[in-house]
């Protein structure tokens, strides 16, 4: 694949084309400046944001939001912290009004220990939100059948987890993720949560995933800006590797150097 073809390897999310396959969260950075520098270094075109209760003294919105707007990225609001269908739907409606986007990263937590998404509530909320005109990015587990239900409900992007949020453990179940990719080949799949290192991102892209959504892996790195740059390279590497197609694995060794004409062969026993 030529450099020109690679530069045209864009993808679409609900009809909008993007070149970067990395979506980045805006939380947990040591400072607003580091957040801005990291997000720029990552090359992302989409950042995640949220809503929280605000006192009048704040003027309506934290100063961090002003820094986020300066980046000029598309915003993907989340429903982080919601535990019921009603909470998620209400917060999504509030997000749409403030952020002026039909996009919503749907998160409905079912268990506080590992912040595992509630599959039943996520599906019900997705159905209601789609009915209300939202374009839903559901955060879900790596359960194939659940992903199929979400797709059938009208989600045109799916975001199964690699591992629980903030753990940085990478792809805990590559088999399950690969199965989802094979069974749902026709819509974008994004690994959301659990990515800790650029090598995890490479692995996900090599499985055929279309993109990665992460936050903590960059924000909590020792050098967030450098790590953001590393993830940018990893995403490109993983995508190129997937497009190139890796060699078939073999159980036994096979010499790479030609054996014909090997010297001294007659001396061996």
């Amino acid at each position, binding site marked *: 694949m030529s450099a020109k073809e690679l530069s045209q390897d864009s993808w679409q999310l609900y009809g909008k084309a993007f070149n970067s396959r990395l979506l980045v969260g*805006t939380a947990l950075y040591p400072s607003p400046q580091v957040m801005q520098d990291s997000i720029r270094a990552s090359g992302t075109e989409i950042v995640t944001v*949220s809503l929280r*209760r605000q006192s*009048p003294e704040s*003027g309506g*919105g*934290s100063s961090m939001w002003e820094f986020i707007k300066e980046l000029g990225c598309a915003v993907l609001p989340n429903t982080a912290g919601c535990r019921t269908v009603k909470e998620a739907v*209400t*917060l999504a*409606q509030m997000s749409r009004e403030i952020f002026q986007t039909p996009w919503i990263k749907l998160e409905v937590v079912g268990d506080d220990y590992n912040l595992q998404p509630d599959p039943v509530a996520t599906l019900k909320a997705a159905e209601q939100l789609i009915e209300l005109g939202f374009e839903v990015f559901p955060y879900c587990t790596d359960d194939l059948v659940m992903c199929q239900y979400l797709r059938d409900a009208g989600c045109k992007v799916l975001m199964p987890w690699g591992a629980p949020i903030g753990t940085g453990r990478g792809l805990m179940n590559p088999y399950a993720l690969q199965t989802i990719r094979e069974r749902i080949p026709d819509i974008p799949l994004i690994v959301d949560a659990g990515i800790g290192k650029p090598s995890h991102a490479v692995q996900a892209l090599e499985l055929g995933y279309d993109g990665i959504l992460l936050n903590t892996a960059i924000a909590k790195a020792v050098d967030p800006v450098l790590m953001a740059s590393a993830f940018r390279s990893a995403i490109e590497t993983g995508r190129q590797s997937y497009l190139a197609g890796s060699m078939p694995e073999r159980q036994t060794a096979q010499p790479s150097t030609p054996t014909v004409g090997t010297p001294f062969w007659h001396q061996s026993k």
Partner: protein
Amino acid sequence: MITIHVNSEAKQIDNSSSIAEALTAWGYQSEKIALAINGEFVPRTEYNDHYFQAGDQVDVVAPIQGG
């Protein structure tokens, strides 16, 4: 006067105040926030015509960073 709860904090307001008037009195800039009453979203277009009821639980939210 009636008592409502805004972000879990009790507030006394005149029961003839619209949402728009109450938000202004509390110091909110309505274009930067979104509002729900008793868990139900109230769009900005209804702020002038909607009135609080005693005991209402009001959530006022604004943008922050998120993952």
